[in-house]
């Protein structure tokens, strides 16, 4: 029987290396042999290449086309069910809908313009940025609405937050204060940027930069007022009608707007709650204990896929994406 070890080729080492059972001493011996001459290295590469081709051949022969197709056909079906713009029947419908939307839009604008001059911005499942007449910016979260009176805005900078959440970056003007009104609550800008959120039970104000005051004006005789500076938070409880104050705002309150997330020993379950709020990410834990794993990370404007990669790498977890849901396992 041929024995290639006699040709000074350490085949046994290469075989063991492919099985990943090489001891450190053997690994060094193999490295030394590879370094000894270019021919050795070429030989080594051809053997490893043969092994690699065998792996590919195995995949080629065992790949399950039926299974893959069944997963794929789901996507094909989904795509098929979506309305095809350009099909004749639907085109008419589309034009009809468009025309209706334009007419409604125009009449709302005209109505607003000719009545009070009130301008309303409303979001459904999108976020948008609005520039007010004075150059201040409002970032409107999903399912939120603001309004302001265009005609008088230059005299009186007043915005109503009707629902949802908005982040304000105000162009400060000592002579003309900037007010956000939420029913009986008024948030008065003394500084530059802040976030306001209306929940079912609370109105929450968090200051990013500068200072604001939050005031409750009813009854007029009993004015409650809190002044907040950077990273402080105030809550108005709508049931008890009281304002509470917190010197430390939650870390990621405005991540929906700037996509910056900071985590210090934060359980994955909370991280995933944030991701769901900001990206709509859906996550399934294969083992509930994984939800308790602690993450340390600073995520600056990453996509959800990138974030999942980072989580997988830093916590040594396996994360796969199936139909827009991420499955986390060990």
């Amino acid at each position, binding site marked *: 029987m041929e024995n290639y070890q006699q040709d000074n080729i350490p085949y*046994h080492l290469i*075989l063991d290396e492919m099985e990943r059972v090489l001891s450190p001493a053997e690994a060094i011996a193999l490295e030394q042999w590879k370094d000894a001459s270019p021919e050795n290295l070429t030989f080594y590469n051809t053997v*490893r290449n*043969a092994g690699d081709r065998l792996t590919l*051949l195995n995949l*080629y*022969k065992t*790949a399950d086309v039926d299974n893959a197709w069944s997963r794929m056909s789901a996507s094909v079906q989904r795509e098929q069910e979506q309305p095809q713009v350009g099909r004749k029947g639907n085109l008419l419908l589309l034009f009809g809908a468009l025309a209706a939307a334009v007419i409604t839009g125009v009449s709302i604008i005209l109505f607003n313009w000719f009545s009070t001059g009130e301008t309303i911005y409303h979001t459904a499942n999108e976020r948008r940025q609005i520039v007010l007449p004075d150059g201040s910016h409002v970032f409107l979260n999903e399912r939120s609405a603001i309004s302001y009176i265009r005609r008088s805005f230059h005299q009186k900078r007043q915005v109503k937050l009707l629902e949802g959440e908005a982040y304000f970056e105000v162009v400060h003007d000592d002579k003309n204060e900037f007010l956000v009104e939420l029913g009986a609550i008024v948030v008065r800008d003394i500084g530059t940027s802040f976030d306001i959120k209306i929940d079912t039970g609370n109105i929450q104000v968090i200051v990013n930069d500068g200072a604001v005051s939050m005031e409750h004006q009813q009854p007029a005789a009993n004015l409650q007022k809190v002044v907040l500076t950077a990273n402080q938070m105030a809550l108005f409880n709508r049931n008890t009608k009281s304002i509470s104050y917190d010197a430390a705002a939650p870390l990621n309150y405005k991540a929906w707007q700037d996509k910056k997330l900071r985590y210090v020993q934060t359980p994955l379950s909370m991280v995933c709650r944030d991701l769901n709020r900001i990206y709509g990410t859906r996550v399934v834990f294969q083992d509930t204990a994984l939800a308790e794993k602690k993450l340390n990370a600073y995520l600056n404007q990453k996509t959800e896929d990138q974030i999942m*990669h980072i989580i997988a790498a830093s916590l040594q977890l396996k994360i796969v994406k199936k139909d827009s849901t991420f499955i986390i396992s060990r």
Partner: protein
Amino acid sequence: MSSLCMPDQDKDKELFAAICQKDQKAFEQLYRTHYRRLLVLAYQYVRNEETAEEIVNDVLLKIWMEAPRLNIAHSLRPYLSRSVVNRSLNVIRQENRLSAKFTQYQVNSGIPDSDEDEAAALEEQLLQLEKALEGLPPQCKKILLMSKFEKCKQQEIAERLNVSIKTVKNQLTIGYEKIRKAISGNVAFSIIFFIATIILGLFYEMPV
């Protein structure tokens, strides 16, 4: 079916035309024809079966959705290969970008942007390899397949076949030696590629 003896290219053309008309059966046939060859091509780069499948599915789904806009009826196969390779490289780049340690590393693909059908070349090599496997002595082939396809350790093979571990080593050596010689026809390319994939593979599997 009369199309059975058609050359591949004509068959592809016919399927592609039907896909432009949103014929789902035609798409399934195209999918089944190309899935495995594109899968190994993607796997060769990304070294992960799930990722490879995702890449192949993305590329083929694009054909389904955008066929009428793609002017590739005459060059479907090279187009598919190129798309799979490009996507694979993107995945690797993304992986590397994510681990700051490797930011300097750039994938210098050297993939020619020609009409070369890389999947066909790889498939050809694999079929050649399969033939070489068939030519091995029965026990040698058996041991090699157990080692490589069933992922058995040498010790396990020795126990299951009731032979000494030295025999297993010798048989594996003989097997690799024969295969190595049989597929060395296109050695230059595959070795360069192999080294590249090992490097990429290292990055890919590296726990950070």
